[in-house]
């Protein structure tokens, strides 16, 4: 089985936000929730870099560890998913997440949270693959159809890579070798406790 990961080649990202838009459209993510976002560091200064970030589907995921109702699970592909039926909207995963991935609709009382929503690596949720219930709660299940996450698939500069960790790391290494530079795989050390040597 593959170990699915995201990798954003920051030297290629042009902050077009197409990944953000593609994600919102594909999963019909409600207003106010962003499963993916593009963060620009040192905006307007020399050395500026943009990084597209969503749930990194961490190894030993902190969200899963702190969840009081244990609603998270990791698929055979290493994708971290959760059950919205079990989620109580306590917000603990958001305190623990290094990437700010968990999002909450503000449907609860006193500005508190509804069921948590986050990137599913286009792999849906615990419901039957491709079912209507799954789509309504988690969005499309592209992985079940043999497709990779849409954000990366339609990235115009192929900056955002999604797929098996070893394969995307290899692609990134080859790029770095060819062009002679690379600012590293952002978030990998935090998410997977490893970096890509280049």
């Amino acid at each position, binding site marked *: 089985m593959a170990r699915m990961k995201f990798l954003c080649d920051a030297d290629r990202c042009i902050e077009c*936000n197409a990944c953000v838009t593609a994600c919102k459209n594909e999963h019909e993510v409600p207003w106010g929730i962003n499963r993916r976002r593009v963060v620009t560091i040192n905006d307007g200064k020399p050395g500026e870099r943009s990084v597209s970030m969503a749930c990194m589907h961490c190894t030993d995921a902190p969200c899963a560890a702190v969840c009081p*109702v244990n609603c998270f699970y990791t698929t055979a592909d290493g994708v971290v998913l959760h059950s919205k039926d079990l989620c109580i909207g306590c917000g603990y995963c958001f305190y623990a997440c290094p990437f700010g991935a968990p999002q909450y609709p503000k449907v609860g009382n006193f500005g508190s949270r509804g069921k948590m929503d986050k990137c599913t690596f286009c792999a849906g949720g615990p419901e039957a693959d491709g079912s209507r219930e799954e789509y309504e709660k988690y969005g499309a299940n592209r992985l079940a159809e043999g497709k990779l996450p849409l954000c990366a698939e339609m990235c115009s500069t192929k900056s955002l890579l999604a797929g098996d960790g070893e394969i995307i790391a290899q692609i990134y290494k080859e790029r770095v070798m060819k062009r002679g530079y690379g600012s590293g795989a952002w978030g990998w050390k*935090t998410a997977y406790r490893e970096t890509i040597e280049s």
Partner: protein
Amino acid sequence: MASFARLIRLTIGAWAFLLLVIALPAPSVAQQVNPTASSVKEQQLLQELNRIQGRVSIPDQRSGVLVQPAGRDWREFRNVTLRWIGGIAILGMLAVLVIFYLSRGMVRLESGRSGRTIVRFTAFERFVHWVTAACFIVLAISGLNITFGRPLLLPLIGFEAFSEWSQWAKYAHIYLSFPFTIGVVVIFLIWIAGNIPNKVDIDWLKRGGGIIGHDHPPAYRFNAGQKAIYWIVIIGGTAVAVSGYLLMFPFYLSGIEGMQWAQVVHSIVAVLFVAAMLAHIYIGTIGMEGAFEAMGSGTVDVNWAKEHHSLWVEEEQARAASGSAPRTAAAE
């Protein structure tokens, strides 16, 4: 005209060729330039601030925080440290109370009952006490569920039932925080007068009060032990209320880091609070004969009052003698 046009075409062509020749070596020069030489580096940014922040073009400006590994320390606290602190505080307190009860038993009324009673707490005081107490018990159980439910209760009742119960427990925790907070504020106001520490307390503490020691050191309306409970409720209650509301209203006053700290304060104070209240419940029920009546019916036996709150009885009797005290007169 035709030759002029040809001349222009030739000139442009020559210029274009010349430009091409000049420009040709340029790409090979560019390839030797390293565009990342001045670029931001992840590790360097993380070391500087322990988090990476940038600009986002979506409306949610808080999502500008890119990486923030501080959640790991919080995870360690929540899953390991807090469970140790809470487990030791609560189980330790229970163990102490059981051992104490087995060795000392219920502290009896030494002089027996006189049959005459004296008003200790008015109906309003008891109402405030019991509203706050009932809220506290629900808040404590629903709060402990968040920390200890997953390892202890979930394996017993299964995912669906545990999630359903936790959802209701969360609602109860949120809604009952309001009457609890009001209760703490009212308790602060109605009993502050009797709870300022004074010299009598030092002597009372030296003699171990009526529960640890075997005699009855004099005390006013509240002895040093009760004053301690009072201040635990006021200070602890304020701490859990403030930190709790920070968590209930995410991002109104603080970012993620602030909420992590709020959760740390909220949970540590809460488990210690629960441990302290276990001791309070013990003394108020099976630990001491005649004590529960004070908060139950509101009246206590005069002999109990003389043994435990001698100076208070003197005050009340002096006030009754001067004819201006409804407290003692209302007894029987």
